């Protein structure tokens, strides 16, 4: 593609959008509910094609990919979509554009996808359509499969809606094509903070930017979750959270904090996690690890080994060929997280100490899996929310955010909408 063809595509889509805006919201919702149900169904043609092609394209092991999709899409049903629309836009029958025009989508929305985890792409492509905004999407260079399949699934169920979802595939570092794409009225962008800063700097005046940067997640266990069956159960659940998407997702835990119980509780937790990760490897194997990531992971394992040998109270558990690793730390200091099934377990004295330890992460915190706080769980949840987490859940549920998850603390649809207030034009009677 070249900048001219991107501009032409955007202009054509904007024209298509005028017909889209004439359609009732209820009708579009019915179509998108059907699209979503198709993606949710493991036996659907789209889902099977995604599973078979994405594993080869991204390096995720097929079993692990299948489980990730199963868990990630299980709650993304048609009714769940309808509930999000009603919660954020009000009554569907009211049909905002036609009646009072108070909420409407932009004339065009550009969606810049990133990474290789399909669920964020799926949602980012469908939501502007609900607001009757046509979408021109740049697929992620790491995932050339998902966006094309989503576009085909929409076109199959609702051809007119399909005409309003098109793709513009060009290299990520092509500044001229990017500038052409940024002419859309609204831009939804995913990627690293550096990428998002570049996009923000290049955005023409008056354009709306909805940015989703990279994030990190953690798990926090109270002492009562670190004993007996409870520990086994939570360790298995956290191993699933870490194993899915090979710990590369923003909802993958990078560290486990054990509140109370001292080093012994942390070591018990680390040991249980090691057992659980070893088992997870048999069900949801680790995928391909690129050389740079393998080098970083091996390096952090060596650092842990050296610290332990030098006398630090650090222990290292690792799988064969370094396929997973758990480092039990002596303190709460944040350290490098090389991902790819590498977990650190930190002891913290209490929730106050946890707050200090996690504070450097706060601006980037997405999810917290928590357990074992008994009566103090409400206080713990409030703390996690205050730290910036938007998905607070039980272990094992990090990778299953609801469709209406307020990612980055934002609503799902409203950031993509333009709102206006129309007051009565009748003169007010003099009193």
């Amino acid at each position, binding site marked *: 593609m070249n900048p001219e063809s991107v501009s032409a595509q955007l202009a054509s889509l904007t024209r298509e959008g005028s017909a889209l805006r004439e359609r009732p919201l209820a009708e579009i919702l019915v179509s998108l509910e059907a699209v979503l149900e198709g993606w949710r169904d493991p036996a659907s043609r789209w889902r099977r094609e995604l599973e078979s092609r994405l594993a080869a394209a991204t390096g995720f092991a097929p079993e692990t990919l299948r489980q990730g999709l199963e868990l990630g899409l299980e709650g993304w049903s048609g009714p769940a979509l309808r509930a999000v629309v009603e919660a954020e836009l009000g009554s569907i029958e009211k049909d905002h554009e036609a009646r009072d025009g108070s909420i409407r989508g932009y004339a065009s929305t550009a969606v810049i996808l990133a*990474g*290789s985890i399909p669920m964020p792409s799926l949602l980012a492509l469908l939501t502007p359509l609900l607001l009757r905004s046509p979408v021109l999407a740049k697929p992620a260079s790491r995932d050339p499969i998902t966006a094309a399949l989503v576009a085909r699934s929409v076109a199959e169920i609702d051809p007119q809606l399909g005409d309003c979802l098109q793709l513009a595939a060009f290299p*990520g570092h092509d500044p001229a094509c990017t500038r052409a794409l940024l002419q859309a009225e609204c831009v939804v962008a995913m990627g690293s903070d*550096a990428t998002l800063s570049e996009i923000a700097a290049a955005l023409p005046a008056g354009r709306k930017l909805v940015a989703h940067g*990279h994030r990190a997640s953690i798990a926090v266990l109270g002492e009562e979750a670190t004993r007996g069956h409870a520990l086994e159960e939570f360790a298995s659940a956290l191993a699933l959270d870490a194993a899915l*998407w090979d*710990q590369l997702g923003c909802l993958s835990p990078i560290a486990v904090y054990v509140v109370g119980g001292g080093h012994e509780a942390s070591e018990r937790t680390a040991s249980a996690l090691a057992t659980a990760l070893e088992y997870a490897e048999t069900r949801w194997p680790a995928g391909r690890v690129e050389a740079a990531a393998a080098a970083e992971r*091996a390096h952090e394992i*060596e650092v842990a080994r050296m610290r332990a040998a030098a006398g630090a109270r650090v222990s290292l558990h690792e799988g064969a060929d370094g396929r997973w690793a758990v480092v039990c730390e002596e303190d709460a200091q944040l350290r490098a997280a090389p991902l790819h099934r590498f977990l650190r377990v930190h002891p913290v004295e209490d929730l106050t100490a946890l707050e200090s330890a996690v504070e450097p992460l706060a601006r980037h915190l997405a999810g917290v899996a928590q357990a074992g706080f008994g009566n103090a769980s409400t206080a713990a949840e409030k703390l996690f929310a205050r730290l910036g987490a938007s998905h607070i859940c039980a272990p094992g549920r990090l990778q299953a955010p609801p469709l209406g998850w307020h990612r980055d603390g934002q609503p799902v649809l409203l950031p993509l909408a333009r709102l206006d207030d129309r007051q009565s034009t009748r003169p007010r009677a003099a009193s």
Partner: protein
Amino acid sequence: MSADPARAGIDARLLEWMSEPQWRRDDERFRSLALELFAHQFEHCEPYRRFCVSRQATPDRVEDWREIPAVPTGAFKELRLACFPPERTSHVFLTSGTATSQRGSLHLDTLEVYEASLTDSFHRQLLPDLAAGQRIRIEVLAAGALEAPDSSLSHMFEVAVREFGSPESRFAVEGGKLRVPELQARLREDAHRGDAILICGTAFAFVHLLEALGERRMQLPPGSRAMETGGFKGHARALPRAELYAALAAGLGIPETRIVNQYGMTELGSQFYDSVLSDPTGPRRKLEPPWTRLRILDPASGDAVTPGEIGSISVLDLSNSGSVCALQTADLGRSAGEGFEILGREEGAEARGCSIAVDLLLSEGAR
């Protein structure tokens, strides 16, 4: 010179090697010095000794320099890896970082070997045509050592200016900012005067300069050369190396064949440079000073990879005589003839997932 007589003896032999007129690869000399230095570091660096013992690699067992346990560079953030008591420390160089992140530190009790190594490599690889006693104007796109006393890069540039720079040499970063207008004025003057210069700095500083130049073009005098080092980690404006070199050639008039990349790190006393100036007829690759050996290892097994295959870089640098000479990095490289090449993560490459690496997160404040 080190106060320890055993190490002073090793240092003296290293200094002699570094002062020889030609670089001479001498495997037996290297082996002998490496094993002697390993025994010294094993004895005097407590954390390193424990690490070696845990690996059952002790001086009485190690017969080949390749068996000397390599310390991961990340360990310099966690441990004081020095072979002398803290009170003898004369310099500490720190890796980049912020108040919230740990910074690696290299402790030195003497700069003699450290500076001899850097001076020799700098001269041979960047200024091979500079006659004895001749000097060149050096424009440094970095802060001077006074402003950044714990930066090994600033120290290296200070030493280079001291040893090879003309009185007109300047540091273009002051108060933490690249002083672009003054820098441009000096470069215009260079172009007018016609004397070749050396312009060196971080890759990111060069990008900053090029952005400031915009569409304007400069033609630095023939014989000028550029040296860039470091990557773009944590910076929004990243540029693949080929594009950077093409832009430098267009913007400053320095041919790509006279642009040299340097590979170095705070934890290492020696640096590695592209061969384009020291061996202009050969392919671009990095050359090892004779007192270093670089190996490419499989990250999972730690075994050497087949020549030409990609792996992580392990360095044995005898100039690290006061700390630990065998280091394991997380950087990628591959052998190239009698040299090697560094394969940074492709600049601007999209991450596979959307999880932020904690080290990147913690280094963000360094931008």
